[in-house]
Every structure is written in C-alpha cells, then in structure tokens.
C-alpha cells in the first residue's frame, strides 16, 4: 500500500506539497518526492494537475449515515450552575443545525437540575433530554458515560458537542470509544461542508503553530470538544421547546469511583477570563515595576492585568494571570498587548478578543499581525501617555 510519483510527469508545481497534511512531500531539483513518513492518506492525488501521483490504495467506502440526524450539546453543570461553554455550544449548534435543516438537543444530567432546562431552551435548544439521579449529582466518568452513551445509541444523533473542560475532556473520549465514534479535541472552529454535509472540525496542533481541519467521515456521531470562550452564546426571544425526562438506573458499584471530598480552592483567573478589558505585558515590559504602569492603565480602563509565559517565568506576574496555550484563554472587548512579540502560543489565548491594541518597539513583531490598532514605540512612553489621556477623557 503506497503512493508514488511519476518523475517524468511531475512539473514541480508543489501543489502536492501544500495538500499533504503530514509534510511528507519534498520538492528537490524541480521534482516532488514522497517521504518515508507518508501515511498513504491520498490527499495529494486530486491536487496534481499533471496526474503524476499514483496509488494502489482502494478508496474506503463511506457508510450511509442518512438516518443520523440532530445536533446535540452536552449541557455541563456544576453544583446546579451551567458552565458558560454549554451556552456557547448551543449558539454554535443552532448555526450548524440551521445549515443541515436539523434541530438542536441539549443533554442535561445531574440531580435536581431541571430548573436549568428553560435557560437551555432560551439559548437555542429545541429539546432538552433531562436525566436526573442521585448518582449523577457530581460528575463521575462511568455514570455519565453510561447515560450519555445509551442516549446516543438509542436516538442516533449526527453530531455531539461537549466543552473542552475537565469534565468534557474526561467524558467525550470515553463516550466516543463506547459508541464507536471518532472524536476531535479542543476545536476552535466548526462548520458544515456544503457538499459532503459533514462537520469540519478545526483545531490548533503542535502548540498552536498549525491549524488542522479534521473530518469524521467513517463514523457517527461526529464528536468534538470545543474550547471554552471561543463560540458565541446566542439568546433568542421566547425559546420554545420540550423537556423530555429520561429514566436512569445506576448502581454505585458499577461506577468504580467514590467521591470522598471536594476541596474548593480560589478559582484562579476567574476575574481575568471575564474581564471586559485586559492589559497584557510580555518580555518588553522589562521588570516587575514595568507592570505597575500596566496596572495603572488597567485600573483606568476598569480591566485586569495579564502576561505572557515569559512574564510569568520571570516572576513579574503570578502564573494565574498567564494568557496563552498553556494559560488562560480570554476574549475581552479590548486587549492591550504591551511589549509582547506575539508567539503563536500567546496568540492562541487572545485571538478571540473583540479589539486588539498593540504597543511594541519592534514594527516587525508578529503581534502586529493580530492588531486592530498598533503603536510602534517605547511602552514606557506610550503606556503612561494612554493612562493620562484616558483618565482625562473618562474623568477618573
């Protein structure tokens, strides 16, 4: 089983190189060459204008899934409160369902949580499947897996979405394996392919250096977890829909895990992830006192201070204020990036901001690529100037 190129036909146009999701094509001296790491996925075949690429792979047949309908959202709640990502997912699900001409269902599991169902209807669910049981009071993998998997197997949805939270990332892979479905983690983009009518799932890979679009052609439901803070919740007027109660029978001994206690620790970064304005600093801030100026600007704007991994590693700001791939994802109305070069890992955590202001001495810093407004200059001059002027304008 392999893919090969006929050198005589190849004109070195590099289209196959661009099409290859695995970087397994190389062009040398005007001829393309397939490398060892080729997985025989066949993505290059259709791209070649010379028809110079050949394969002996038999095309895999796609099963008929025309009976799989509906977009489902796992409505995650904790201690009777809905996680914001659940409403964000309903917003996206409504959009996808409209394109497919299907409807949206929310799965609500817990103990005495029926009061949350109207909110789900208001935010886009046409139907809420409600499963209440004492054993579902706190999230436990096997209890939740069983209820969700049984619903999927009985009602056969086409798409199932969950938040990429500690619960969603524990539950989704377990359910996917049980129901025999492919799963894509931590998506930042979801869309319906207009021709194939399948879900296109886009996510960052390699620490956010590359975006990859993934399809799930060979199994149903198409499952994905989605990063919190990426999709928009949409409230609708007079949300109508039905709440359908599901009977649940669960035995403690089949759950395998017993909760002894739950210890609350102050939620790190909560104020930051909800902030309307974030003023963030990076290496260019220089030292801890440099962050004072950022704090003053944040105070005037009624915002929060954050930083890059470098700022955290240097000890200029605490770890729970780190924005980026390994820190928090924020999506304020206004993000002010000061002395931040804009490594892709940092950008991953702030790309969802409504407007971005960049202050940096280096006009070639990649952060300018994501700026709405940029000021090239020394932040030691620019930031105090901003503080002064905004204070005057805002009368603070």
């Amino acid at each position, binding site marked *: 089983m392999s893919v090969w190129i006929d050198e005589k036909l190849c004109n070195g146009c590099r289209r196959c190189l661009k099409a290859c999701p695995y970087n397994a094509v190389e062009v040398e001296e005007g001829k393309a060459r397939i490398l060892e790491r080729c*997985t025989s996925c066949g993505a290059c075949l259709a791209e070649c204008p010379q028809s110079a690429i050949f394969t002996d792979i038999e095309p895999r047949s796609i099963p008929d899934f025309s009976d799989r309908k509906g977009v489902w959202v796992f409505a995650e709640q904790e201690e009777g409160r809905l996680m914001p990502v659940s409403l964000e997912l309903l917003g996206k699900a409504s959009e996808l369902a409209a394109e497919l001409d299907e409807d949206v269902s929310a799965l609500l599991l817990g103990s005495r949580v029926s009061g949350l169902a109207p909110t789900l209807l208001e935010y886009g669910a046409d139907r809420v499947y409600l499963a209440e049981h004492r054993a579902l009071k706190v999230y436990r993998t096997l209890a939740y897996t069983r209820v969700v998997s049984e619903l999927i197997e009985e009602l056969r949805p086409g798409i199932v979405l969950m938040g990429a939270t500690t619960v969603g990332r524990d539950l989704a892979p377990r359910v996917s*394996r049980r129901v025999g479905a492919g799963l894509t983690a931590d998506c930042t983009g979801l869309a319906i392919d207009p021709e194939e009518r399948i879900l296109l799932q886009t996510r960052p890979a390699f620490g956010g250096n590359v975006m990859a679009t993934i399809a799930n052609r060979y199994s149903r439901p198409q499952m994905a977890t989605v990063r919190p803070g990426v999709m928009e919740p949409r409230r609708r007027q007079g949300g109508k829909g039905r709440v359908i109660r599901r009977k649940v029978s669960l035995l403690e001994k089949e759950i395998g895990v*017993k909760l002894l206690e739950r210890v*609350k620790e102050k939620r790190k970064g909560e104020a930051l992830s909800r902030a309307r304005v974030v003023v963030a600093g990076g290496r260019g801030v220089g030292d801890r006192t440099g962050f004072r100026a950022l704090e003053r600007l944040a105070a005037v704007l009624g915002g929060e201070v954050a930083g890059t991994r470098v700022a955290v590693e240097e000890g200029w700001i605490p770890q729970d204020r780190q924005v980026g791939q390994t820190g928090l994802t924020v999506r304020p109305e*206004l993000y002010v990036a000061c002395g931040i070069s804009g490594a892709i890992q940092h*950008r991953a955590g702030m790309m969802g901001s409504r407007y971005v202001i960049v202050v940096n001495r280096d006009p070639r810093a990649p952060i300018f690529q994501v*700026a709405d407004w940029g000021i*090239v200059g020394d932040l030691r001059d620019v930031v105090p100037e901003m503080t002064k002027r905004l204070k005057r304008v805002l009368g603070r």
Partner: protein
Amino acid sequence: MNIIVLIKQVPDTTEVKLDPRTGNLIREGIDSVMNPDDRHALEAGLRLKESGGGKVTVLSMGPPQAIDVISEALGMGADRGVLLTDRAFAGADTWATSHTLGKAVEKIGDYDLILCGRQAIDGDTAQIGPQVAEYLGIPQVTYVFGMEEVKGRSMTVRRRIEAGYERLRVSLPALFTVTAEANSPRDPVIGSLLAACGAKAPIQVWDAADLGMTTAQVGLEGSLTHVIRTFPPKSQRAGEILEGSPAQAVEDLVGRLKERNLI
C-alpha cells in the same frame, strides 16, 4: 503492584518553527523527547513501585527511533519496555491508537494500574487515556496530581478540577492520567541508561501481527477521523498603525476607541 506506563516520543514543540514562505512546519532538525506529562506519569509509577513493590513496564507506539524514550525510561528505573512499531501504524488517530495500545496492554497482561500523561504536547488531545480505559473496561481518573494510600483493591487519589480538587477512591485495576503538578521526575542513572541501550536490554518490539491486528484496524486505515487540511493560523484584523509622537498616536487611538464606544 504491577504498573504499565504509556509513554510517547514527541517533537520538542518549544523549538517548532514555521517556514515563513510556505507556512509549513519545519520538522527537520528538531529533537525528539519523552512527552513531558508522561515523564511525570512514569515518576509516579516508579514511586509506587518503590513504596509498595511490583514492576513497572513502559509501553510506547511510534517509529523505530521511539525506542530511545523506552531506554530512557529504563534508565530512570522501569523494569521492562515494549515498543509497538510498524509502518502500518502511521497516521493513526486516537481511535486506532487506543485500540492498538489496548491490545498491547492485554498482551502484557497482569496489571493493577495504568498510568499516562495528561496529554501529549504534539496533539494536545488528552484522549488516549480515557479511550484505552474504555477499551479495557476499567475505571479512569484524569488530571491526577496526588496519590494517597493503596488499600486492598482500591486507591485514593487527588484529581485537579477547575474549582479546586477532588479526593476519589477508585477500585483497581484503573487508569490514571497524571499532571505535571504531581511530582518532579528524576533523571536517568547513567549506568542503567547505558545498559538500557545495550543489546540485552529488556525491551520487546511488537508489530501489528504480534498484536493479532490487521492493517485495516491500525494506522490511517483503522482511523475514524482524518486531517483533511493544515494551514498556518491567520488573522483578519485591520492592523492600522497609528503614526506620530506618542502623544499624537495615543490621541488617535482614543479617537478610535470613542468611535466604537469602547470607552
């Protein structure tokens, strides 16, 4: 207690760069390392062995050179290593990978605990742990950062959650995914590392046939999800540079903020 630790060799993504011209990932010349979270899982396994006895087996799937991370694990104190390598494993998604690893765990057999890292830095999916646990039909606990006592056929662990942490009692055998918060991994011992790289090292290499799997069950063919496109991250913002002295630029900026009712 017999422990199997799942480890993965990954490119060191802190070194990853993009080709500015093509936007493609430059993979050549990048070192491969043991996935950072897996190192914490291995350390946790070694500590359990030291306090309660038993054996630690490390299991990895990857190209032939992934044997390096197995040698390193033996150098840190693991007793035995198994490498799953086969051209047919290439391009596997988490469905095919968890199937293959699950088969290998069954073939190794006789385990009380399976440990793996929270997630791998090249894929960041965090799916393999739960999917292997489901394949084997055993309980799982993800985000484990503390292990307390082992009592009979159960164990108490601490699991990190958004609001703090949970203390859970889990029946064994079970699978845990371990976070970096759990411990500080040891360095390999030079003597053991050298022995682990030698011909007599206790490392076995299995291919698809050894696991009783057909090529249709593994790698790209055995996968349910497929990458159909990769591209560099892009921005769609205006990117207006405000010129002039700091005072002038800031004045313009304040004007823009007012226009959009941001202040």
